[in-house]
C-alpha cells in the first residue's frame, strides 16, 4: 500500500493555476523532497496534503484512504512549519504536548510522551523554558518534537531549515536524516535548497510552475535530468548551457560542436527532437595543457581548498563555470587550457528535453 497518493490534483486561486495535474505516490518510510523555485507550487502541494488548502479537483489518499474532504486534524499528518509556529506563551513541554492536552489525554501520558520525544531530540533539559529562551536550532527541535509525539502517518516539513544559519542548517540536516532512519516514518519535505534535496531525499520531486517536472532519486535526477529546467536546478554551482553550432550522428554516437570545439558522445538514449543545446556541469571540464579544446579566460577565481572554481569567458563571449579538483594556480586574465568530459551527457532538443535520460 502506498503511504500517500495524489491523483490528478488541481488547485486554482482565482485565475492563478497553482497546481496542475499532480500525480505522485509515496511509499511508506520514504523521504520525499519537493523542490523548486519560489512560486512553483511545492508549498501549496504540501498544504493540500495537510488539509490547510482545499484542492480544486483530484483526490488525495493517505494509507489508501481518501482524505480529500477531511479536516487537517482528521488526516493524521503532522507538520513542521518554516516559522516553527511555536506558541510563545507556552513552555517547550506545553508546546510539544499541546495536541494531547486538547485531546484530553491523561497528564502522565502527556508527560511521558513529551519526555520521550524530547530525549530523541536532545531538548529534555529545556522542557520548562519558553521558546524565546531557545536558540533557533532548539526551537526547530521543539517544532519537530511536536510532530513526533503525535506519531503521525506522514511528517510534513515546510522549509524547516531556512531560518537557520548555514552551520546549523548542515547540522540539522544530518539530524533530520538520522531522525528519519530512527523513526522510519514517511516524510514529505519542502525546500528550495537543492543541497537539502540531494542530501535528504530518497526521491526528489522537482516542481516548476505548478507542474511536476521529474520524480526520482537524487543521483538519477542529477545524472539524467529530464529537461533543461531540472538540469539547471540541481547541482551547485549550476550547470551551464551552450547553443550547439552543429551535430552529427555517427554509427554509435553523436558528435556535437559548440563554441569552437567538438565533443563525441555516446548514442542518445532516445530519439527526441533536434539537438539544440548542451548542458555542462562545472566538473565536466578538465585541465589539459597538451591538447586543449577550449581555452577560456578567467574572470573570477574561487579557491575552496579541495576544489577550485573558475568563472570564465569563452572567445565567443559565452560564460562557463569550471570546477577543477585540487588547488589550481591561476590568475584573472589567464587562459586555462581545458577539455570537456561529459560524465553524464545532457543534450537538450529544441523542446528543452534531454535526449540522454
Amino acid at each position, binding site marked *: 500500500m502506498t503511504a500517500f497518493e495524489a491523483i490528478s490534483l488541481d488547485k486554482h486561486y482565482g485565475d492563478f493555476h497553482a497546481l496542475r495535474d499532480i500525480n505522485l505516490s509515496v511509499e511508506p518510510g520514504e523521504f520525499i523532497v519537493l523542490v523548486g523555485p519560489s512560486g512553483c507550487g511545492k508549498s501549496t502541494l504540501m498544504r493540500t496534503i*495537510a*488539509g*490547510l488548502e482545499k484542492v480544486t479537483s483530484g483526490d488525495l489518499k493517505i494509507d489508501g484512504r481518501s482524505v480529500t474532504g477531511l*479536516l*487537517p*486534524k482528521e488526516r493524521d*499528518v*503532522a*507538520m513542521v*512549519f*518554516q*516559522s516553527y*509556529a511555536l*506558541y*510563545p*506563551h*507556552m513552555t517547550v513541554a506545553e508546546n510539544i504536548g*499541546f*495536541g494531547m492536552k*486538547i*485531546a484530553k489525554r491523561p497528564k502522565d501520558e502527556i508527560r511521558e510522551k513529551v519526555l520521550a520525544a524530547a530525549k530523541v531530540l536532545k531538548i529534555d533539559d529545556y522542557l520548562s523554558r*519558553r521558546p*524565546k529562551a531557545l536558540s533557533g536550532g532548539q526551537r526547530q527541535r521543539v517544532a519537530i518534537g*511536536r510532530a513526533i509525539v*503525535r506519531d503521525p502517518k506522514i511528517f510534513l516539513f515546510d522549509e524547516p531549515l531556512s531560518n537557520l544559519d548555514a552551520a546549523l542548517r548542515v547540522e540539522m540536516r544530518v539530524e533530520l536524516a538520522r531522525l528519519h532512519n530512527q523513526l522510519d516514518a514517511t516524510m514529505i519535505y519542502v525546500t528550495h535548497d537543492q543541497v537539502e534535496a540531494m542530501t535528504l531525499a530518497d526521491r526528489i520531486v522537482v516542481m516548476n510552475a505548478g507542474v511536476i517536472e521529474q520524480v526520482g532519486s537524487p543521483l538519477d535526477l542529477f545524472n539524467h535530468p529530464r529537461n533543461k529546467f531540472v538540469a539547471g536546478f540541481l547541482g551547485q554551482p549550476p550547470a551551464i548551457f551552450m547553443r550547439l553550432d552543429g551535430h552529427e550522428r555517427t554509427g554509435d554516437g553523436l558528435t556535437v560542436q559548440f563554441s569552437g570545439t567538438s565533443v563525441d558522445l555516446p548514442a542518445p538514449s532516445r530519439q527526441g527532437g533536434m539537438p539544440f543545446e548542451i548542458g555542462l556541469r562545472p566538473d565536466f571540464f578538465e585541465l589539459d595543457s597538451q591538447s586543449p579544446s577550449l581555452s577560456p579566460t578567467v574572470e573570477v577565481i574561487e579557491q575552496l581548498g579541495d576544489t577550485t572554481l573558475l568563472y570564465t569567458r569563452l572567445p565567443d563571449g559565452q560564460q562557463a563555470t569550471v570546477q577543477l579538483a585540487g588547488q589550481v594556480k591561476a590568475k584573472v586574465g589567464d587562459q586555462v587550457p581545458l577539455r570537456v568530459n561529459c560524465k553524464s551527457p545532457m543534450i537538450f532538443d529544441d523542446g528543452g528535453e534531454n535526449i540522454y535520460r
Partner: protein
Amino acid sequence: MIGKRLIGLFVAPAMIVYLCFFLIPTGFTFYSSLFEWSGFGSEAKFIGLGNYRRLWNDPTFWLSFRNTLALLFVGGFFVFFLAFLYTILINSGIWGKKLFRLVFFLPNVVSVVALSAMWAYIYNPRYGLLNTSLKSLGFEGAGKTLWTSPDNIFWAMLAALVWVFTGFFLILLLAGVDKIPADMYEAADLEGANLWHKFWYITVPMIWDVMTISFVIWIINAVKMFEFPFAFGFLQVPQQLYTLGIYLYIMGFGQRDPIYQLGYATAIGVVMLVLAFSLIVLVRRLMRRDQLEF
C-alpha cells in the same frame, strides 16, 4: 554624569507638558472640590471635605454610582463577551470579514443623538422594531414588553450601549488577532484544535496586551460614561439613567434646572477619577505578564 543629564534634558519637555496639563489640573480639581461655589461671580466658600460628606449621604449620588458600576461590570461583561464571540466567528474564516468589521464599527461613527433616536424607535412599545418583530414571530406576550418603562429603561439603554461599544472593542481585539501569525492556527488545526481551543489557548494569551489595554479603555469610558445615556434621555435624563458623569453635569451645570453647585460637581469628578484610577491599577496588576515575542 552627562548621560543622565542628557536624558533629563530630553525628558524635560514631556515632563513639563505632563505637569502642566495633567498633574496641576488634577491637583486643582481636588482643591476646587473643597469649596462651595456656584460659578457665578460670588466668592467660593471653603468647606473642607464638606462636599464629600454630602456625597456620602446623597441617595442620588449612590444611585449614579450603582448605575456606573452596573454599566462598568454588567455592560463590560457583555461588551467583551460579544466582542470575543464575534472575534472568534469573524476569525473562523467566514466570508465578509471586512464587511462585518465595518458593520460592527459603524455605530461608533454615528452621532449618539441619532443612535438614541434609532433605539427609541426600536424600543417603542407599539410601533417599535423590537416589539413588532417579537409579535410577528409569535411571541405575543414578549411583544408587549415596555422596554423603556422606568423598570426597564436602564437595561434597555445598557443593551443599546453594549451594541455601540462592542464594535469598537471588536476592532481593537481583531487588530490584535491579526498580528498572530496564521501558522499558529494552522498548527493548531493539525493538532485537532476546535474554535474554542484556538480561542482560549492561542488567541487569548497572544492578545493579552491588547486585552489589557481594551479593559483599561473600557474602564475609562464606563466611569466617565455620559453622552449615550444622556442622549437616550432626550429632553430630560430620567434618574434611572444617571451615571456619575451625568450627575456631575446635572449638579455643576444644570440640565434644565438652575442647579449650580460647581464644588459639589467637582467632588463627583474626583470620585470618578479615583474610581477609574484604582480600577486601572487593579486591572494592570491582575493582568501583568511577561512581554511576548512572536
